[in-house]
């Protein structure tokens, strides 16, 4: 009777055989073997060095020098961790993120404190300690198979007994066969076993290396808390940048606007004053009209300075915001040169900072509409959706708005995105060429 193997299963079987058959000839298998050997050597070295530091450190603790030795040992531990990471990157392509950098405060005690409290160094030391049983297991479970396979395959050439039978194989295959009667049969068997093991070895080694990968990810990369801290640090630095940028803008506006106007004002009044002094002595009547013109200019300059200063103060913190986002947005839209429809539906007031961020986003977006969009009308909506405050600015302009972070063309949108991200909010832009442009900002209403 013919056993009919379904086609699908046959294909799967062929694929599995191909996979197993190809494995010993892939670079990856040999790289893993190489990694195991190299990292075992590194572990041995680490054990000796760190053990020496540890023993000396503990032994000398009474004379305080021990603390120094321990700190030195931890520095070495961190370095060994770096070597191990480099090894994993080279041999396995395993790209482990660097742990938090060693950044001691200046001075000797800063160094000592940072060294002894260096989490990355301690974790590296723990890694090498934990690596000891893993290495022993790897020799027993994986290296033995490789050695056996290679020796057995070589036995027809060397005429040797074929294999050392250590590790996991000692139990499964029984004691090794040696010469004597049935020599050929014995050698044939040894070779056949070697050939089979040759295809098994990559898999046992892969299992051991996989365990090591897990251990490295656990102990040699940044830990979870560090990762979170890093994210927070990034967002904090962006927030600080945004704050600095705001201050810079205010300074610029003051410098270019009010300050310049006041200087011009003082200049005109100074001129007028000197002309008045001259009038006292001898009064050529023609000078009177020049004097009047100077005073007129000064007067106009003073009024302009007042207007500019008011606009600037509003830009720093709009007074309307004190009574709520609704009022502030209504004023903002009314002041926009592009006709803007406003809809606000807020059942409760968001926190002050969220209100301010929302307001400035809306202001920046409306300013963009006025400056770049070539729009005939725009709309601004602000509504609460559960815990989120959603602000949408829409215009019928020419579109093509992007978040650009490069050089002088860096758009205000990039700054907005950073500002919004700083409070875990989100900004999205839909702006196909030809428009319309829709910018949606979601902010957590409770900050």
């Amino acid at each position, binding site marked *: 009777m013919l056993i009919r193997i379904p086609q699908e299963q046959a294909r799967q079987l062929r694929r599995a055989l191909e996979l197993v058959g190809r494995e010993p000839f892939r670079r990856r298998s040999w790289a893993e073997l190489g990694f195991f050997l190299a990292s075992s050597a590194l572990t041995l070295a680490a054990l000796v060095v760190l053990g020496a530091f540890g023993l000396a450190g503990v032994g000398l603790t009474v004379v305080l020098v021990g603390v120094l030795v321990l700190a030195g040992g931890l520095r070495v531990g961190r370095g060994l961790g770096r070597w191990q990471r480099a090894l994993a990157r080279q041999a396995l392509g395993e790209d482990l993120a660097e742990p938090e950098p060693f950044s001691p405060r200046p001075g000797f005690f800063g160094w000592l404190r940072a060294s002894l409290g260096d989490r990355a160094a301690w974790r590296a030391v723990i890694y090498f300690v934990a690596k000891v049983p893993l290495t022993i297991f790897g020799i027993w479970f994986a290296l033995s198979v490789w050695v056996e396979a290679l020796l057995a395959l070589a036995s027809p050439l060397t005429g040797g007994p074929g294999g050392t039978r250590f590790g996991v194989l000692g139990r499964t295959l029984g004691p090794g066969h040696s010469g004597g009667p049935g020599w050929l049969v014995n050698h044939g068997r040894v070779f056949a076993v070697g050939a089979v093991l040759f295809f098994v070895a990559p898999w046992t080694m892969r299992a051991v290396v996989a365990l090591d990968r897990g251990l490295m990810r656990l102990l040699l990369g940044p830990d979870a808390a560090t990762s979170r801290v890093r994210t927070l640090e990034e967002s904090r630095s962006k927030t600080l940048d945004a704050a600095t940028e705001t201050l810079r803008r205010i300074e*610029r506006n003051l*410098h*270019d606007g009010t*300050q*310049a*106007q006041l*200087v*011009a004002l*003082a*200049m*005109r*009044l*100074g*001129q007028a*004053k*000197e002309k008045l002094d001259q009038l006292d002595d001898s009064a050529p009547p023609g000078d009177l009209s*020049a004097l009047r013109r100077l005073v007129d*200019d000064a007067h106009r*300059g003073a009024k*302009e300075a007042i207007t500019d200063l008011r606009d600037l103060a509003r830009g720093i913190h709009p007074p309307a915001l004190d009574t709520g986002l609704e009022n502030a947005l209504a004023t903002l839209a009314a002041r926009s040169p592009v006709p803007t429809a406003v809809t606000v539906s807020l059942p409760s007031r968001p926190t002050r900072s969220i209100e301010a961020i929302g307001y400035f986003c809306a202001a920046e977006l409306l300013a963009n509409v006025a400056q770049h969009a070539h729009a005939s009308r725009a709309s601004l909506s602000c509504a609460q959706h559960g815990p989120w405050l959603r602000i949408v600015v829409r215009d019928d302009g020419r579109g093509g708005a992007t978040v650009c972070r490069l050089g*002088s063309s860096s758009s205000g949108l990039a700054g907005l995105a950073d500002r919004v991200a700083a409070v875990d909010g989100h900004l999205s832009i839909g702006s196909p060429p030809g428009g319309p442009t829709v910018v949606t900002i979601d902010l957590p209403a409770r900050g």
Partner: protein
Amino acid sequence: MTALGTSARVVIAEDSAVLRDGLVQLLTDRGFAVLAAERDAVGLERAVTADPPDVAVVDIRMPPTFTDEGLQAALRLRRSHPEVGILVFSQYVETRYAAELLAGGAAGIGYLLKDRVADVSDFVEALVRVASGGTALDPEVVTQLMGASRRTDTLGALSGREREVLTLMAEGRTNSAIAAALTVSEGAVEKHVASIFAKLDLPATSTDHRRVLAVLRYLEG
């Protein structure tokens, strides 16, 4: 006012329109010939190259980056047109800017706060001084340079009045101007100056800008 004051040729570089117009009006009124009023450093260099004036009034912060374009342009002009006086005109005094500006010598260099324009006559006088190869430093600049000087120990040896005289000297004033400013006799000023030169171990010279140079060299050292 020297005779040059009524005919000095000026180029202005100032990005604020209101100030630029004000300066043009003021200087024209005072008999200066304003050859060009530019709004950025590129325009300034073009104008000076096309028709070198006696003096250029240069704002430090100008487009496109609003940092120190004006100063950089002034330093370049100093090299390409050493005969053109440079009056740097800014709303802030930065010690580094002053040091860079004076590094090549104090002749024909001025650094004034914009506020000084309110005292029109003083400003015009300073501009004329720079146009004729002299020096005009804002008291603020001098104070900062003195503060930044590493020789505060020897400066401490000066009496209060001598410090005042030194400050005015570094601003580029003549003995008679210093005497007028401090309402003392010119002879008294001369005595103070001699004493300062002795205490600071400076070579005694008579030319105005050389005195400034000597003072500044000493302060920088």
